[in-house]
């Protein structure tokens, strides 16, 4: 597989070899700063934000696939910190929490999404200005039970 196919990440030429630098890491993992986004059709709609130098990854999802009404209000300073991507250049993803042994109870964090400048390869996790409107543990599959 030479190219990772778009799984509705609303994006672009997302290639396997793209590496994203999170200069402040991700809270809790400040030293882990370089990641790639990997997707595997068997894991759709999930992807993985996989650390380059460490054996860890975060499961990610395009939040709009599950929650189309999501309207994240991201602070301009946070956008500036990844060098101000345009709407076409920004990728917004939510980190997924999958409880051990209970995948049907998976949640995503809508309070603190990841923002990525796809062209510059920069990313950070941000806390939304309108964080009070959203859950940090939004159930992904609750409607299907």
């Amino acid at each position: 597989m030479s190219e990772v196919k778009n799984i509705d990440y609303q994006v672009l030429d997302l290639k396997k070899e793209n590496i994203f630098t999170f200069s402040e890491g991700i809270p809790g993992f400040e030293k882990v700063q370089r990641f790639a986004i990997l997707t595997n059709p068997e894991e759709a709609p999930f992807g993985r934000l996989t650390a380059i130098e460490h054996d860890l990854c975060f499961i990610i999802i395009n939040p709009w696939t599950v929650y189309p009404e999501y309207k994240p209000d991201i602070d301009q300073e946070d956008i500036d910190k990844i060098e101000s991507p345009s709407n076409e250049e920004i990728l917004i993803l939510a980190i997924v929490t999958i409880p051990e042994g209970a995948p049907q109870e998976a949640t995503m964090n809508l309070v603190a999404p990841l923002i990525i400048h796809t062209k510059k390869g920069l990313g950070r996790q941000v806390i939304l200005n309108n964080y009070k409107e959203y859950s940090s543990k939004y159930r992904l599959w609750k409607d299907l039970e």
Partner: protein
Amino acid sequence: MLVLTRKLDESIIIGENIEIKVLEVRGEQVRLGIVAPRSISVHRKELYDKIKSINVESVKTKTDKITVPFKSKEGGEQKPDSTQNGEHAE
């Protein structure tokens, strides 16, 4: 911990360029104004700690398998109205 007493409209300065000012005191709530360089991230601590602990809870190793529930039904995705392109075309 250094403890300082401040009144309304008074501030403290940390280093040369971080200023924290008391803007309003109302009952149990204190409103603070913070001036800091862009490189300094400022967060409500309990919120930041929560995000941190969710991240720790979420992390997987590269070889951890992940299960997508309900996969067998309708291509495995919970479909809202947006067009989904979940399948990979070889």
